[in-house]
């Protein structure tokens, strides 16, 4: 595939993530922080987010599976995940965390279990999409191309 076509694919793919609400404008803010001196900034931060979130989701699953759920332990984890996802622009993960957190405050165990699944689902979705996005970028760079900043135009 020619470079121009690859770059178009990347733009279209990125656009679809915004249209589906998977990413929000905060992701664009992240991209603005990336430059020639730091060309991997976005993927570095996102990778940190993945590592951190994998750990948090694991801890959350364990906490909710206890005989007696300690909500004082659960809340800080959700808070952190909500914060991180918001910071990288993972809108749907953030929104799911907000609902999840409300149920934690109400100590509604059943709803918490349901919403943890929802959070995980949204997380795996954005993880999958961003990994694809980074692969597309890598292909472009490997072919000698440059990553053009995404212009939302909407």
């Amino acid at each position, binding site marked *: 595939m020619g470079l121009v076509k690859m770059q178009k694919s990347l733009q279209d793919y990125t656009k679809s993530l915004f249209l589906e609400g998977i990413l929000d404008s*905060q992701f664009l*803010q*992240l991209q*603005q*922080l990336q430059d020639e001196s*730091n060309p991997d*900034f976005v993927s*570095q*931060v996102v990778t*940190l*987010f993945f590592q*951190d979130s994998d750990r948090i989701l694991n801890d959350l699953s364990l906490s909710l599976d206890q005989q007696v759920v300690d909500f004082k332990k659960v809340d*800080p984890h959700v*808070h*952190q995940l*909500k*914060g*991180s996802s*918001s*910071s*990288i622009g993972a809108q749907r993960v953030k929104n799911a965390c907000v609902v999840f957190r409300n149920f934690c405050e109400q100590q509604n165990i059943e709803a918490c279990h349901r919403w943890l699944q929802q959070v995980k689902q949204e997380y795996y979705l954005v993880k999958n999409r961003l990994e694809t996005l980074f692969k597309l970028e890598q292909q472009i760079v490997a072919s000698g191309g440059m990553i053009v900043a995404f212009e939302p135009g909407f």
Partner: protein
Amino acid sequence: MNGSGGSCSSLMEVAYDDDHHHGHHDDELHVLAVDDNLIDRKLVEKLLKISSCKVTTAENGIRALEYLGLGDQNQHIDALTNNVMKVNLIITDYCMPGMTGFELLKKVKESSNLKEVPVVIVSSENIPTRVNKCLASGAQMFMQKPLKLADVEKLKCHLMNCRS
């Protein structure tokens, strides 16, 4: 970076990420950014560096106070205080385990050495009572998280105007 935050270890360890690569010019703002969230620390550090600030990050209020020379009396931090390059601004998250950003703000404002240092509180939640109590306790500004480049520019302008 481990989150134990317990033992009084060397302050030059991983608890701080100090920018040793660039010299500190007098017109460059030296910002101490405090946040328990690793991703947010990375972001605020980048935002500030891009905005030509020198940045030191701390993962909690206690570490921040230690860096500022307001640590536990039992710790011998006087030598370090002399080495620490003057902090011109503190940006702190509000919601942190242990010491909150609000508590950190109060400690800074209570200190004769540091009360003139502007403290900016950032939070994902723009709750009016929270905003008001921070401002009432001497916070320079209360800003919404996540911070954007435009926010940092605005903040710098505000501070420069206050300085002159």
